[in-house]
């Protein structure tokens, strides 16, 4: 009898398989990953793994033996080329056809490519997979000239690691501030100043128009500005991998369209992770999130629904980033706020910004303030007194 097939080998895929077994499913589970490693955590790739603080085993979500013990057929370096919904099977690039009863598409996302002249030169990297980081590491000298393109979280995390390792780091951002897409001007300026104080050269409003060099990159060309670089890391966003879904006729629009059960327009097919365009019942709108907590939760919800439990996805988006000694935790979307309250001290790098909409908390950005982040989860959607919220003398627990 056909079992459950999972396409993808990231955190959503691994969590879905684990959850199916945890929920008592005893049928076949086959996971197809086009990577060569057992499923691993991606967040440390741009942080502790890049810094050499984690070894590779620490990245693996579970040891390879787990999949054998739990009778999960994990096929590595195996690419699925087609989904045939009428016959309920998938085709692997090796030519094999595998039938499914239920299917999970957890194909994630891939880096957006920088399409400018010279982008094929050696020394230009993206950072998404373990192999990307391994090749970046082999190219590092004692003091490399590193140019990072893109001032999003990946770019800033990489800048922090590289400057701490003693490299010369320049960061180029095409918008007028770093983190422009994801946070407020105030937070952007905090991170800008932080990185500048550590020695990162930052050029905002600067567009890369090409790369020059022989076989290997030597310069990043930005109009009048030419940045010397022997290593370039590009982090300018991701594109959801929806080609397989789209090719099989599933509804897609900036991600695979799923309902609040993580179910696609085909009742036997589910999707989880970066590639889903899903409804968020708390925020009351559709989202496509690039986040581990979302991938994990959608993986659990889809597993339960595959087994006939009626499970609704209901989760507040949250994110984290570590840069230098700094811990950033974010809840909700700051753009939903119409006013803000700062609790703590920005100079001391220990503060939280609460974003309010008609006195109701709609988002929190917490810097070295885990308790403020945690209370944000409880205060979300609730009205608070802004005066008390901003007053450190007023205890957090009394806000609830």
């Amino acid at each position: 009898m056909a079992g459950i097939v999972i396409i993808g080998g990231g955190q959503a895929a691994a969590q879905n398989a684990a959850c199916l077994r945890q929920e008592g499913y005893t049928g076949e589970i086959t996971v197809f990953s086009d990577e060569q490693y057992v499923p691993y955590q991606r967040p440390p790739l741009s942080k502790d793994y890049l810094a050499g603080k984690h070894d590779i085993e620490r990245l693996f979500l579970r040891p390879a033996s787990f999949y054998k013990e739990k009778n999960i057929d994990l096929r590595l370096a195996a690419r699925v080329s087609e989904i045939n919904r009428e016959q309920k099977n998938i085709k692997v690039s090796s030519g094999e056809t595998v039938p499914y009863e239920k299917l999970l598409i957890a194909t994630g996302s891939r880096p957006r490519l920088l399409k400018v002249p010279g982008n094929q030169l050696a020394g230009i990297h993206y950072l998404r997979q373990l192999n990307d980081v391994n090749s970046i590491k082999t190219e590092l000298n004692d003091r490399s000239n590193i140019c990072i393109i893109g001032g999003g979280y990946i770019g800033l995390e990489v800048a922090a690691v590289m400057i701490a390792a003693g490299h010369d780091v320049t960061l180029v951002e095409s918008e007028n501030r770093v983190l422009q897409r994801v946070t407020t001007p105030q937070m952007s300026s905090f991170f800008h100043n932080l990185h500048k104080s550590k020695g990162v050269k930052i050029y905002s409003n600067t567009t890369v128009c090409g790369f020059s060099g022989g076989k290997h990159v030597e310069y990043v060309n930005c109009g009048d500005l030419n940045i010397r670089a022997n290593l370039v890391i590009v982090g300018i966003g991701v594109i959801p991998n929806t080609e397989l879904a789209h090719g099989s006729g599933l509804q897609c629009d900036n991600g695979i369209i799923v309902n609040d059960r993580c179910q696609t327009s085909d009742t036997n097919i589910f999707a989880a992770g970066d590639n889903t365009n899903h409804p968020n019942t708390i925020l009351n709108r559709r989202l496509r999130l690039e986040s581990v907590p979302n991938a994990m939760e959608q993986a659990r919800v889809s597993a339960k629904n595959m087994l006939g439990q009626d499970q609704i996805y209901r989760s507040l988006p949250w994110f984290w980033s570590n840069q230098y000694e700094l811990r950033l935790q974010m809840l909700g979307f700051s753009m939903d706020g119409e006013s803000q309250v700062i609790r703590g001290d920005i100079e001391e790098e220990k503060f939280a910004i609460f974003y309010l909409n008609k006195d109701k908390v709609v988002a929190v950005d917490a810097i070295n303030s885990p308790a403020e982040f945690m209370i944000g989860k409880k205060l979300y959607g609730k009205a608070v007194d802004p005066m008390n919220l901003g007053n450190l003398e007023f205890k957090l627990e009394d806000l609830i």
Partner: protein
Amino acid sequence: MPKINFIEHNGEQHTVEAASGDSIMQSAINNLIPGISADCGGECSCGTCHVIIEPTWIEKVGSPDKTEEAMLSLNPDRQPHSRLSCQIKVSDNIDGIIVHLPEFQY
């Protein structure tokens, strides 16, 4: 290999063999122990691997550091011996430890 005893909120007990050097959270994940979400993978960022240490073991395990304490401080299921299991390393020193799982992770 050190043994860890997980006791679910409903009383069900799971005894697992854990690798020294792993965290208690990782041992739970490797053995599909229900009630530990561990969304951030051990970064002390999400607070979803909360466990309550059996009082007789707390001396060997120790108390949380500042960040972990802040993550735990507002947890409604917080108990005197609460810890985040990603911050506890498995070693022979805690062979046989008993940890209780809360009803919910937040």
